């Protein structure tokens, strides 16, 4: 079997195709990010995580500092345990608070970290004590309605 120019073209074609796949995997699918970074894991318990998903960003002051690694359900306290993978470049005090926030009105949910004032930094496997659950729209509306109803009762009571 001899080498021919067709071989070169086919080789270039296959290489180009594989490069396309690689581009999709790395640049579009982001296979590489955070996997090369050193990370440490922190746990946080929430009463309600709303629509938080695995791989959702963890932000502090709006900057992405990590990702949600795992969401579990604790069957003893009936709370959600969220494991956060934080980049080792960023250190946070031990009394950092975690909130579940929504980006924009209809955007995805993410975990927001607010640094505290403790001198001791978080280590791998630590648990965040201060957490605030996701805002559930239905609860918000029902609270609003109940408070309105309560106001109405008070007014009636005042008239009598």
């Amino acid at each position, binding site marked *: 079997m001899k080498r021919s120019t067709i071989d070169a073209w086919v080789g270039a074609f296959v290489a180009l195709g*594989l490069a396309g796949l690689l581009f999709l995997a790395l640049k579009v699918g982001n296979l590489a990010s955070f996997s090369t970074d050193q990370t440490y894991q922190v746990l946080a318990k929430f009463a309600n995580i709303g629509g938080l998903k695995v791989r959702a960003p963890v932000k502090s002051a709006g900057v992405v500092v990590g990702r949600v690694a795992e969401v579990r359900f604790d069957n003893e306290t009936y709370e959600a345990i969220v494991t956060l993978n934080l980049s080792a470049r960023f250190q946070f005090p031990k009394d950092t608070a975690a909130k579940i926030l929504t980006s924009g009105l209809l955007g995805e949910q993410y975990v927001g970290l607010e640094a505290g004032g403790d001198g001791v930094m978080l280590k791998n496997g630590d648990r965040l004590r201060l957490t605030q659950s996701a805002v559930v729209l239905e609860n918000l509306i029902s609270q609003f309605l109940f408070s309105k109803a309560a106001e109405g009762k008070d007014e009636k009571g005042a008239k009598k």
Partner: protein
Amino acid sequence: MAEGGPVADLRQGLERLGRTFTAKIWRLGFAARFLAYLVLHSGVALRRFGLTIREIYFAGVLSLIIILISGLFVGMVLGLQGYETLQRYGSSEALGILVALSLVRELGPVVAGLLFASRAGSAITAEIGLMKATEQIAAMEMMAVDPIARVVAPRFWAGVISMPLLAALFSAMGIFGGYLVAVPLIGVDQGAFWSQMQASVDVREDILNGVIKSIVFGIAVSWIAVFEGYDAPPTAEGVSGATTRTVVTSSLAILALDFVLTALMFTGGNGR
């Protein structure tokens, strides 16, 4: 015959319908046996890989230009149209997600498959059909060379190998086209474009499933193309009819398979 007329017509019609149906089933069975025989006798195509490489050149390399240019334009149109819709909701940064997900999941494999069927599939059918019409296939059989192993199998495997690569290039080119429209032309923030895309495109869930789709389409199109060519009546009319059937059947097969695969891949469980 005045009274028996309509009844006879009806009977004749039913008979014709039955004959056509039986012939179709017969042909489907033959096509399935053909595929099995082809796969079992593709040892030559894999051992003498030069044969397959030559066919990859014709099916893959020569389809490259149409795939790349169509990908670019499809991506650019997606960018423009997606922006029109997304900016109403004030989320034009999600343009990257829209372009990437629709290309990687659907448009890449499907449109590349359709283009591949009409560019390469029709050529394969015409080539094999003409070889049959000019009795080259019969001559090979006479020389104790198995035409399926020597002629059909390399073309089949070339199609199966080329199709995923072409689909990946189509998607990559489309995302580049979407980027060209979104960032320099419209002025969407470059960081948001890429980061939102990277945050929501999953390598296994989206990209791998797209690749699986394109492999399935590659098998379907190549199978239909080589079978139509091999089964074509050895006349000029027969070959032209077979070429048309290749394009029609494989386009329909791609769209139908796409529905089935999408239903299996993207609606199962994860509740996105």
